[in-house]
């Protein structure tokens, strides 16, 4: 198991085609939504005019980028492991979800434990140690020093 972790996750990606597709997708999304807003005319632009214009330009750029990609082909790209990705992106959201019901201290403990999932080779003791130190540090810095008005323990844990 540990040896697998040393290997890098490599995926073949055609960078230009992928980037072009992402830009076109955003252009379509923004463009379609902006058609819901009043367009107005050039002398009196409505809220939809400018975003629609930008979306059109973005779509053109996206297509142009995609076309240049077809001549190049795919490259091997090192990417982050999915588990690490989820742990990193999810831990702020976990904090947001738990800080009110559980309170600051449990939320920080939970969040730091989840964050360390992104580091595969830590022992349980190391993870708990990191969580403990972080909780102490964050409580001192944010609650005691900066005085952020968050309850140390939330509604669910106080009776």
């Amino acid at each position, binding site marked *: 198991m540990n040896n697998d972790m*040393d290997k*890098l996750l490599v995926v073949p*990606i055609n*960078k*230009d085609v*992928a*980037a072009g597709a*992402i*830009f076109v997708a*955003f252009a379509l999304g*923004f463009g379609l*939504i*902006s058609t819901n*807003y*009043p367009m107005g005319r*050039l*002398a*009196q632009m*409505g*809220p939809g005019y*400018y*975003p629609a214009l*930008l979306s059109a*330009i*973005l779509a053109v*750029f*996206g297509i142009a*980028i995609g076309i*240049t990609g077809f001549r190049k082909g795919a490259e091997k790209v090192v*990417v*982050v*492991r999915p588990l690490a*990705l989820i742990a*990193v*992106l999810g*831990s*702020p*959201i976990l*904090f*947001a*979800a738990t*800080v009110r019901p559980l309170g600051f201290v449990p939320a*920080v403990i939970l*969040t*730091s434990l989840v*964050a360390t999932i*992104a*580091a*595969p*080779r*830590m022992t349980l003791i190391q993870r708990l140690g*990191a969580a403990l130190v*972080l909780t102490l*540090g*964050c409580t001192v810095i*944010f609650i005691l020093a*900066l*005085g*952020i008005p*968050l309850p140390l323990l939330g509604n669910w844990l106080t009776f």
Partner: protein
Amino acid sequence: MELFDNLVLGLQTALSLENVFYCFLGCLLGTLIGVLPGVGPVTTIALLLPVTFGLDPSTSLIMLAGIYYGAQYGGSTTAILVNLPGEASSAVTAIDGYKMAQKGRAGSALAIAAIGSFIAGTVATFVVVIFSPPLSEMALRFGPPEYFSLIVLGLVLSVTLANGSVLKALAMIILGLLFGLVGADIYTGIPRFTFGQPSLMDGINFVAFATGIYGISEILSNLEQDPSRKTKISKPKGLLPSWDEMKRSIGPIFRGTGLGSVMGVLPGGGATLSSFASYALEKKLSKRSEEFGHGAIEGVAGPESANNAGAQTSFIPMLTLGIPGNGVMAIMIGALMIQGIQPGPSVMITNPSLFWGLIASMWVGNLLLLVLNLPMVGIWVRLLSTPYNYMFPAILLFSAIGIYSTNMNGLDLTLLGMFGLIGYVLIKLDCEPAPFLMGFILGPLLEENLRRAMMFSRGNPMTFIEKPLSAALLAIAAVALLMLVLPAFRKRRETVFVE
């Protein structure tokens, strides 16, 4: 003697006990975070931005400036000691600085970097003092068409910051402009792209955006490799440079200062271009050009001075025109707006103590860095040897708590994750984040001036060309764009970035 009065007002503000303390704290925290491998100034400022919210506007801006200088110096320290520059401008320092460190001369390299930065900072402060008032006076006479063209120019020039495809950088700008539009429309109040979320009416939380595309995506990039690996550090022995090293550095320091002061003012310029240009210049001028790349102290002294001078003079367009020349300044503008100050030429008149206080604090900050960093090198070295698997949860939590505390709104942390993902994916696809951030910041301003210009001219787009100043700005933008696309120039730009 108006200049003198302004300086006195500035020094009074900057030297108040509170401001000196926060400037010091900013330098310290900036260095502390900036010294972490792979964390550049933009990331550092974005991460620390929430800390400054509770302060009054002048103090918070002074602290942010302190964070910026600290982060830059921290980045140089990392570049010299472990060859891991956090951003492009200290990549140049790593070339010769790391070689010096391997030869046991890390102390000299760090000391020369600090001394050079201090000299450059002192000179650049005066440049800012002298050139800001006339520029903002000129900008006050700008109408909507001129402002529109100026923003377009700023955006186009920000493409020069991005290495790689011009098309991708342009697309990133447009995407940034679009994300900048989220919120209530300025004229009708109609909510745009808010998906019914009331908290999005004021736009996407700027800190969540910046921290996501810089901070979170950086963590993801670093986690591609096993985070428990250890970095190799060359411990500095002795801090004082030899007499010979001092003598060799004087010329590069002053040339770098001059170069950086000029290039920093240009939109899209700032620290990065200045340091590259200075390295190239010193290599050309030196009688020992063969030593460059093998630990020539000139290769540290010049670029370090240049990037500090450039960092400082890049405040000029931000303070006087409200147009950020680079990513750091984009964040500064965001910070000003969060403090309720509309950046632009009127800041100097409406908030003179903020304006001059910030400028005076630049010099104070540089002085503090000099006395702060050299004695504390040992601590930075120890910090650098902390494995990344203890670092990233801390960075992650700090930014999450910081952002949450600004609005007490959980949606901001979802946005943080979302922009982290978008930033990471786009960076993997060779799309750089700086133009994205610039577009995001300038999006609303660009729209407002476009719509006003169109209203005033009754829908005649020729207004941008008929007004001479606006036409000139657009012409410069067009030439810059053409030069980026032309093959001959493109090759030169690529070689500059590869160096």
